[in-house]
């Protein structure tokens, strides 16, 4: 096989891409490549190696710090044809990932009042649209069969 310049460059780039993908999946510098991961340039393939896959996560809200929590969102039950056709997965997947990311940020001590991460804003936007009151706070809880519900995160009071 005689390699052209275009072929040589393409092969070199692909080899580099494969090596970089392995490095970001196993290396200690994973968080530095979040933009590349976002664009799918350096994908992460560590499926279900975080504990968030082993519990159910839900969003609750309440009008003030003394009020009762109202369930606002949880993954919708799947229909019989979900293995083939599942349009609901799109929105539920976005909220699930946002909730998991926010809970992870909070657990790692990265959350501060006035958090403007995509995860926080996505959940806050959803709460604004769906909550039955004009101001309040939201919470993330996790649950699993045979286990009490655990509170993962509580937001400050917001006016929306």
């Amino acid at each position, binding site marked *: 096989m005689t390699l052209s310049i*275009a072929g040589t460059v393409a092969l070199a780039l692909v080899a580099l891409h494969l090596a970089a993908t392995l490095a970001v999946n196993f290396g200690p510098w994973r968080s530095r490549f979040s933009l590349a991961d976002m*664009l799918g340039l350096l994908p992460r393939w*560590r499926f279900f190696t975080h504990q968030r896959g082993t519990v159910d996560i839900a969003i609750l809200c309440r009008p003030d710090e003394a009020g009762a929590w109202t369930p606002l969102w949880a993954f919708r039950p799947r229909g019989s044809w979900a293995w083939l056709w599942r349009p609901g*997965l799109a929105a539920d997947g976005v909220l699930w990932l946002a909730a998991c990311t926010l809970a992870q940020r909070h657990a790692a001590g990265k959350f501060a009042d006035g958090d403007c991460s995509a995860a926080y804003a996505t959940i806050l936007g959803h709460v604004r649209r769906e909550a039955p009151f004009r101001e309040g706070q939201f919470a993330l809880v996790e649950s699993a069969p045979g286990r009490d519900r655990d509170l993962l995160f509580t937001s400050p009071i917001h006016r929306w």
Partner: protein
Amino acid sequence: MTDPILTIAAASLPATRWLIAAWAMLTAAQWLASARHFAPGGLLAWHDLSRLPGPRWSRAAQRHMPAGLARLLFVAQALLAVMLAVTDTHAVMLPTLAALISIQGVLVILSGHLWVDGSDKIALIAMVGALLAAMGVAAEDAGLALAGLLLAGGQLTVSYFVAGASKISVPGWRDGSWLTAILATSTWGEPRFPACLRTGGFAFVASWSVILLEALFPLALLAPAPILAAAMAAMMVFHILTAILMGLNKFPWAFAAAYPALWGLGAVIRPSLGLPA
């Protein structure tokens, strides 16, 4: 076409086209069915996303793009998928693949990373790989065609290896308890899954089957073709099971789209290393 790599790449393209088309059609249809989330005030309203931190150029794009563009892009993706499925001429296939890649890129930039899952990532890689392979075949450039096979087939192999190897370091995967826990959730589990299959013994065996199948998958690339075929079939059964049990319905199509490139990559690697066919 005398170079065997060009012959192998050309042989991989028809199946790749069909599988990418199936994924693109399914994805576009599912998003069209929930396109309200892109409307102003919706879950993925671009204008709202533009207020979040991020590169200035992507925020400017989010601010100025009309919300109706999302629906238009999904319709375009569905039409391009049909074109890709029915055509086998390079004059149509190359711009169609390039357009599908562009649409996916625009949607990722405008909608943010929460919008993308693993199936979208491998599908994008399969599309770029197919584009490179098709360009190589059209230009009779074996290096370019091999780069396409290596990108799609190589990333597929890396994805399985990473998925398996990273599970080994998790105690819950090693003892099977995480598989049991995942299948018991209402998010990723299946209530109709018989309770007896959630017992410790089954979970342990199933857990290690997944770990070993994924982590050892790269060895199949070096094995004779029937073993590679068996490994690919086993992984496809795994994807179909995750679609049925966990509702991950885009994954079988997206991962399968990289299978023809993987098959081609095996056919290139074995003779070049002097391994049995």
